[in-house]
């Protein structure tokens, strides 16, 4: 059956090229949007997992002020976690973040850094209720909401995902129609052969199988070429991607090295997903054409 399908493909190279090209464009765009959506969602999850509110205390505030607020919040039953970051802890974090810049390290001491409380609510809807309690607490200088960052990121992620889904769907539809048209033409060309096969007692799958495989082949090859381009782009752009996506630990571990296990597993999984989807998409186009133009009795 595979050799019959291969014969079909070899005998009409231009039609095969058109089908593969269409599939390639679908998977190139679909793949890029998929990766963009996954990356932005990982960034979003990262920010969502960070404390939702950071409360900075004045220099005059005592450790008791922080402890008192911490207790008040815990007693409210609306917070998932509260973490006190002392001036010394803040300095340690600052040093870690700027370890490659000795000049910045020299100029900063624990005194000039504020102590803070990192608060995560059990549910984002509690944030509004917690806000007045925090603002009225003694020694509070500034309250920073992570919510604003998350909201902006969420908006962008939704937009990217929405546009990606619409474009990829349109291209997928186009690919299915092109595959359908090509397979329909082949069914028409092979009408006599199909009639002979039917009279000889060929099973429906024996007749339909090569056409389904042919459609699947177009999809899989289109997806493979798209994967090569996308994987190449990711490797090429890796340092740049690492720079602004590296804050997310998952993405950092994947992008750290193109030969790392995480990177190879990710691109391998992506290849498998694209090939499988490509094969299914092409086969679906063929099956639609067969249902429409090849009634076997």
């Amino acid at each position, binding site marked *: 059956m595979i050799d019959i399908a291969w014969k079909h493909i070899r005998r009409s190279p231009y039609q095969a090229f058109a089908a593969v090209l269409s599939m390639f464009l679908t998977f190139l765009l679909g793949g890029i949007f998929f990766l963009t959506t996954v990356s932005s969602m990982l960034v979003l999850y990262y920010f969502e997992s960070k404390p939702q509110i950071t409360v900075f205390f004045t220099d005059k505030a005592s450790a008791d002020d922080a402890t008192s607020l911490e207790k008040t919040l815990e007693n409210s039953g609306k917070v998932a976690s509260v973490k006190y970051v002392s001036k010394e802890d803040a300095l340690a974090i600052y040093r870690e973040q700027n370890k490659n810049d000795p000049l910045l390290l020299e100029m900063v001491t624990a005194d000039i850094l504020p102590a803070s409380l990192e608060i995560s609510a059990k549910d984002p809807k509690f944030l509004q209720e917690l806000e007045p309690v925090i603002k009225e607490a003694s020694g509070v200088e500034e309250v920073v909401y992570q919510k604003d960052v998350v909201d902006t990121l969420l908006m962008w992620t939704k937009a990217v995902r929405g546009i990606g889904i619409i474009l990829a769907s349109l291209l997928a539809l186009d690919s299915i129609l092109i595959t359908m048209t090509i397979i329909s033409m082949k069914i028409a060309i092979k009408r006599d052969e199909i*009639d002979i096969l039917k009279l*000889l007692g060929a099973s429906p799958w024996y007749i339909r199988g090569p056409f389904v495989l042919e459609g699947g082949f177009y999809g899989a090859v289109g997806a493979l070429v798209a994967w090569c381009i996308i994987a190449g782009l990711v490797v090429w752009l890796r340092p740049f991607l690492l720079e602004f996506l590296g804050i997310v630990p998952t993405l950092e571990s994947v992008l750290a090295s193109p030969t790392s296990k995480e990177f190879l597993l990710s691109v391998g999984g992506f290849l498998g997903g694209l090939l499988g989807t490509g094969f299914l998409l092409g086969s679906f186009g063929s099956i639609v054409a067969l249902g429409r133009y090849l009634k076997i009795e």
Partner: protein
Amino acid sequence: MIRFEHVSKNFSGHSSALSDITVEIKDGEFVFLIGPSGAGKTTFLRLLIRDQLPSEGKVFVDDWEIGTLHKSRIHLLRRKIGMVFQDFKLLMDRTVYENVALGLDILGKKQEEIDKRVLEVLDLVGLSDKHNLFPLQLAAGEMQRTGIARAIVGAPSILLADEPTGNLDQQTASDILTIFQQINSLGTTVIMATHNAGIVNDLKKRTIALKKGVMVSDEEKGRYRVSPKVKEKKSHEDD
């Protein structure tokens, strides 16, 4: 066994292709189906392979009733029946060997088995030395032998032949008939629709005559009685 029980076949806008046919053909018989063009010979054969359905009556092939046979089992019915066509119906882009092997490939046989069986059958029809040629490189008689080889390669219990000698000269037709006799002698039921009075009269086998869809005779050692009109026309053609 093949059985027609009061079978009629009507096509919309046309007169009956077959009308109230009742006949039984036992396993291993050799039967000629004769009659002028439009008599219903091809319809008779097409009903047997369920290429068409009867308008009335029942057609049985062994225990299978054609009219009620489920779509998913049609190919299994056709595997019991080999079919030879007047226009050969060979795949022109495949060699003699590949055309014949197709009959076994669709059955899912292994390659070694296919090789062995195809060579046996090509030997039977006298085409062993031409297995690598394409149909267009063959004479008409050789194309028909290829068609016969393909029809019998799967060892069907029934062989149907629709005007298999229609495009062949008398000598080649006679050779083809010899092959059919050989196949029949191996136990295969052979039903051959033909116009060729010579071979029908020479062989003296059971002969079912149709005329305008009606069965006009069914004789054990039948003769093809050519009407005076046809005789006259034929003698003009021969002149």
